C-alpha cells in the first residue's frame, strides 16, 4: 500500500504545527521521521491516524484521496499506530486487549476470544514475538507490551505501521529486538513510519529519512549520512555530538555510601547492600536497565525513602535519617528522574519553580514574607543564563517543552553552591540541542569540583558523561568499571553478568576487526543484523 500526504497543514489557533508537509511512504519501506521534540512529528501522525483533522491538505492511499474521521477509519484503511504511551488495559489479557474494539462473538453475544488467540499465535509465530495470548498485560515487560501493540495493528491487517518514538521506553536489548521485528515486517511488504530523534536507531533501520523542523519538511536524508549531519539538519544549526570534556581532576573522596539497603513495602531489598564513593570533581554514572533500584537509590540519598539502612556521608556528615530540607541544605543538588512529577509544579510560574526549594531562604524571603520582586528578577536572570525559551517568567512551567522544563530544574539546582550533584535521567525526552546543553552544564559543575552522580538508562549518555560507571542490577552493584568500558561489556553487565565474565564473553563474541563505534550498529549484533 502506498501512502501519500500532500500539503498537510495543521493549525492550532495561531500556532502552525504542520506546514504544508508532503510525505510519500512506499510499500515495503521504512520511512523515518526525524525531528526534535515539538517539531510536529506526532501531530502529523495524529492527522494521518484520524485523531486530528488537517486544516489543509489531503491524504492519498494508493493514489486515491481518503478522509479519516477517526482512528477506526484509519485502521480500516490499513493504517496501524503504536503510540509512545501504550493504549493497553493493564488488567486485561493480551487476547482481550487485542480483541478490544474488534470483538468477535459467538452465540448469545459471548466473546469469541479463541479466534483472537489463534490470530495472536499465528502472528507471534510468524515474527517470533513470543507473546502468550493469556498473559496479563500488566505482568509483561515494556518490550513485550509494545509487541502486543504491534500485534493489535497486525490483527487488523495494517499495511502501514506508525511507530511513535517506539524505543523511548526500551532497554538497549529490547531496542535491538524491535529493530529486528521491523526488518521482518518490512520483508513482508509492510510499510513502517518510524518516528524518532535517536540517530543511532534511525540510521540503523531506515530506508528514507525525512527531517522535520518547526512543522516543516527541511529535507530528505540518506541513512548513510553522518550522525552529525542528521543532528544538524534536525536542530537547524551545527551541533556537536561528542562532548568535549577534559579528564577529571579528582580531589578527595567526599561522598560515601556504605552498605545502603532500601526495603520496599513487600520486604524486598530494592537496593541491596550498595557501597561506593564519589570524589570531588568526578562523575560517577549509575548505569542499568530501568527499575533496578536507581530510583530508590537516589530517593534514599534525598531522604524520601522509608526503611533505609546503611550509611550515606557527605563531607563526613551523616545524611541518612535527615529531612529532605536538611539534605538539600547540606548542599545536595537534586534533579529527579521525572521532572513533571517530582521536579516541577506544573501550574506554578517559572519564577516560582526556580525557587521551589529556596522559597524560604534569603534573599527570596524574610521571615514568612516572600519577595516577589527578587524572585522575578532571579528568574529573569536564570532564564537568560540557561537559555529557557519562554515568553515570560510568569508563564506556567507546564506550558514549556520538556527541554525547557528540564533547564528550569537545572537552573534551580545549579544556582546554589553544591557539595554533591545528583541527576537522574537528566536528558530523558530531550532533543539533541537540549541534551548538548544539559551535558555541558553537568560537566561544568564537575569541573567546578563538585562530586556528580548521574543516573541514566541511556548507554550513550553514560558513556559520554561518566568518569567511572557503576552498573546496577536488581538493586545490587554488578561492578564499577572505567568509562572506557565497551558497550558490549556494559550491556552484559546491565543484564547481571559480572564485569570479568562480561569482559571475557564480549571479546569472544565480537568478530575480530569489527569496529565498535558509538553510532553504528548496536553492540553484540554485528554478526546477525546485516541482512
Amino acid at each position: 500500500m502506498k501512502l501519500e500526504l500532500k500539503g498537510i497543514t495543521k493549525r492550532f489557533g495561531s500556532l502552525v504545527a504542520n506546514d504544508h508537509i508532503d510525505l510519500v511512504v512506499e510499500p515495503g519501506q521504512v520511512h523515518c521521521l526525524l525531528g526534535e521534540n515539538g517539531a510536529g512529528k506526532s501531530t502529523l501522525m495524529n492527522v494521518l491516524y484520524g485523531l486530528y483533522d488537517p486544516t489543509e491538505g489531503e491524504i492519498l492511499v494508493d493514489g486515491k484521496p481518503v478522509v479519516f474521521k477517526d482512528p477506526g477509519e484509519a485502521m480500516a484503511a490499513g493504517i496501524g499506530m503504536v503510540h509512545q504511551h501504550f493504549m493497553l488495559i493493564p488488567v486485561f489479557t493480551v487476547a482481550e486487549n487485542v480483541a478490544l474494539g474488534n470483538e468477535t462473538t459467538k452465540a448469545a453475544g459471548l466473546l469469541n476470544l479463541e479466534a483472537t488467540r489463534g490470530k495472536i499465535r499465528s502472528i507471534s509465530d510468524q515474527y517470533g514475538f513470543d507473546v502468550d495470548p493469556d498473559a496479563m498485560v500488566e505482568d509483561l515487560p515494556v518490550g513485550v507490551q509494545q509487541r502486543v501493540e504491534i500485534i493489535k495493528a497486525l490483527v487488523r491487517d495494517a499495511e502501514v505501521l506508525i511507530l511513535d518514538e517506539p524505543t523511548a521506553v526500551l532497554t538497549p536489548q529490547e531496542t535491538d529486538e524491535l529493530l529486528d521485528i521491523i526488518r521482518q515486517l518490512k520483508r513482508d511488504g509492510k510499510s513502517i513510519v518510524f518516528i524518532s530523534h535517536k540517530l543511532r536507531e534511525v540510521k540503523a533501520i531506515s530506508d528514507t529519512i525525512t527531517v522535520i523542523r518547526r512543522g516543516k519538511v527541511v529535507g530528505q536524508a540518506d541513512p548513510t549520512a553522518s550522525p552529525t549531519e542528521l543532528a544538524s539538519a534536525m536542530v537547524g544549526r551545527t551541533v556537536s555530538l561528542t562532548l568535549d570534556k577534559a579528564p577529571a581532576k579528582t580531589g578527595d573522596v567526599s561522598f560515601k555510601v556504605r552498605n545502603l539497603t532500601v526495603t520496599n513495602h513487600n520486604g524486598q531489598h530494592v537496593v541491596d547492600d550498595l557501597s561506593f564513593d564519589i570524589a570531588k570533581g568526578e562523575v560517577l554514572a549509575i548505569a542499568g536497565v530501568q527499575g533496578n533500584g536507581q530510583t530508590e537509590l537516589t530517593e534514599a540519598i534525598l531522604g524520601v525513602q522509608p526503611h533505609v539502612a546503611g550509611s550515606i556521608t557527605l563531607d563526613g556528615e551523616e545524611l541518612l535519617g535527615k529531612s529532605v530540607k536538611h539534605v538539600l541544605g547540606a548542599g545536595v543538588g537534586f534533579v529527579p528522574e521525572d521532572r513533571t512529577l517530582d521536579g516541577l509544579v506544573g501550574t506554578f510560574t517559572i519564577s516560582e519553580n526556580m525557587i521551589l526549594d529556596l522559597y524560604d531562604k534569603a534573599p527570596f524571603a524574610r521571615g514568612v514574607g516572600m519577595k516577589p520582586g527578587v524572585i522575578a528578577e532571579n528568574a529573569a536572570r536564570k532564564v537568560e543564563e540557561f537559555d529557557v525559551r519562554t515568553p515570560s517568567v510568569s508563564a506556567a512551567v507546564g506550558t514549556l517543552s520538556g527541554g525547557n522544563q528540564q533547564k528550569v530544574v537545572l537552573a534551580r539546582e545549579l544556582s546554589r553552591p553544591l557539595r554533591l550533584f545528583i541527576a537522574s535521567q537528566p536528558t530523558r525526552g530531550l532533543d539533541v540541542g537540549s541534551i548538548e546543553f544539559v551535558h555541558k552544564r553537568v560537566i561544568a559543575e564537575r569541573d567546578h569540583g563538585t562530586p556528580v552522580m548521574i543516573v541514566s538508562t541511556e548507554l550513550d549518555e553514560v558513556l559520554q558523561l561518566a568518569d567511572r560507571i557503576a552498573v546496577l542490577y536488581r538493586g545490587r552493584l554488578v561492578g564499577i568499571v572505567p568509562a572506557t568500558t565497551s558497550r558490549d561489556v556494559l550491556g552484559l553487565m546491565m543484564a547481571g553478568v559480572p564485569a570479568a565474565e562480561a569482559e571475557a564473553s564480549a571479546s569472544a563474541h565480537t568478530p575480530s576487526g569489527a569496529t565498535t563505534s558509538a553510532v553504528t550498529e548496536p553492540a553484540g549484533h554485528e554478526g546477525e543484523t546485516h541482512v
Partner: protein
Amino acid sequence: MSEKTTPEPQATSPDDSPEPADIREPGGTTSEAMASDVVLDTAGGQMPPSAVPAATLRRGRDQDGNGSVLHQIFTGNAMVSVLSVLLAIVLGGILMAVTNPKVAVTAGYFFAQPGDLLTEVIRPYTALVQGSIFNWAGADLAAQLYPITETLTVATPLICAGLGVALAFRAGLFNIGAQGQIIFGALFGAYVGFAWHLPIGLHLLVVILAGLVGGAVWGGVVGLLKARTGAHEVIVTIMLNYIANFLLLFLLTTPAFQRKGSTNPISPFLDSTALFPELLGPQFRLHAGFLVAIAATAFVWWLLNRSTIGFEFRAVGANPSAARTAGINVARSTILVMAIAGALAGLAGVAQVSGTEKYLSGGVAASIGFDAITVALLGRSTPWGTFFAGLLFGAFRAGGVAMQAQTQTPIDIVLVIQSLIVLFIAAPPLVRAIFGLNPRKKKTTTSGTAGSRTSGIKSGAAA
C-alpha cells in the same frame, strides 16, 4: 492553566495553547499531555515501587480523591463562573414562570400581550434585587439601604467559612467540615462571651480568639488524622460535622451552656462587651464582623500569594511529590492548612454568635458550612473570588426573603438557583457549549480562523 499543553511547545505563548482535551484524543497522545496530566492528578497518591514500567506506573498514580475533575471544578475559569450564574438565573426564571399560576393565565393571551408574561417572570427577580441591594420603594434612606446591609450581614459568615474551604482546597484538601468548624468556633466564642466577664474591647478580642482556636482545633484534627494515618479528609470531616452538631445539642442541655430558667436548648445572651459593634446604628443588623471578613480575605490573599507558608500550601496542593522533593514537609503543611481553614470557619461561627444571633443555639451554623463549599467553588478558590461569591450568596439569601414576602414566590427557588450554579460550574463544557464558546467542532476543515478566535476568547477568560 498548564494542562493546556501544546503539541508544539517551541513557538507558543500560553494564550495560543490549544486544548488537547477538546480535540479527539484517546487518553493523551502526546507525551507532554500525558505528563502534565500527571502534574495535576497526583494528590499524594504514592504507589509502592513495583516492576511495572515507568509509563504505566505514572498513569496508575493519578487515582486519588482529588482527581483532575474536582481540581478543574474548583479552579475553572472566571468566565464559566459568571456564565453559570447567568444561566442559573435564566433557568430559575423559567421555573418560576411554569410554577406561577398567574403566568399560566398570562400565557393564555401571550401573543396578544407578551409583556404581561414577562412582567410576571421579572417581578420576583425585581423583588429579589429590592430585597438584597436597594429598595427604591423604601420610605426613607434607611429603609432604602436596609437590603444591602442585610446582604452584607448574611454574607459575613459565608465569606469566612468560604475562605476556609478555599484555602484548604488550594492545598489539595477538600474540606467538607466547615459546618463542624463553625459550630466549634461558635461554641468556644459563645462560651467565652457569656461565661467570662471582661472589659470592653478585650472581651470581644478574646471571643474572636476563642472562636479561632475552636475552629482550628476541629480543623487541625482532620489535618492530623490525614497526615499521620492517611485518613481521607472528606470522610473525616463529614463525620466530625455530625459529632460537632450533636455535641452542640448535648451541651445546650447542660447547665454550663443552657440559659437559666429556659427549657429551650439555647445559651444565655452574650455580654454586650462580647458583641461586634453595630456599624450603622441599631436599626441595621450589620456589624463589625463584616470588617473582620474583609480583613480575613486580605489575610488569606497575603498568606497564599506572599508568604512562604502559602507557597508551601500551594505547592503541596498542586504537586505533593514535587513539594516533598523540594524539601517541603507535606504532613506539617496538611495539619497547618486544616488548622487555619478551621480557624477561618470558626470566625464564621463567631460572626454568628457575636454579631447576628447574639446567643448560641442548635441552629447556629444553619447550612452555612455547606453553602461555604458552593461559595468557594463559585469563587474558584481565590480569596477575593470567594469574597464576591459570598456577597452574591448573601444577596440571594437576603433577597429571597423579600421575594417570598412580596410575590409569594417560594424562597426555595433561591436554593434551586444556587444548586443550578453549582451544577453548571461542575460542567464547564456544557456552559461553553450553551454560549457557543467551545473551541471547535469536529471536522472544521475550513474554519481554522474561527477556531483560533474562540480559543483566544477562552484562554483570555482563563487569564
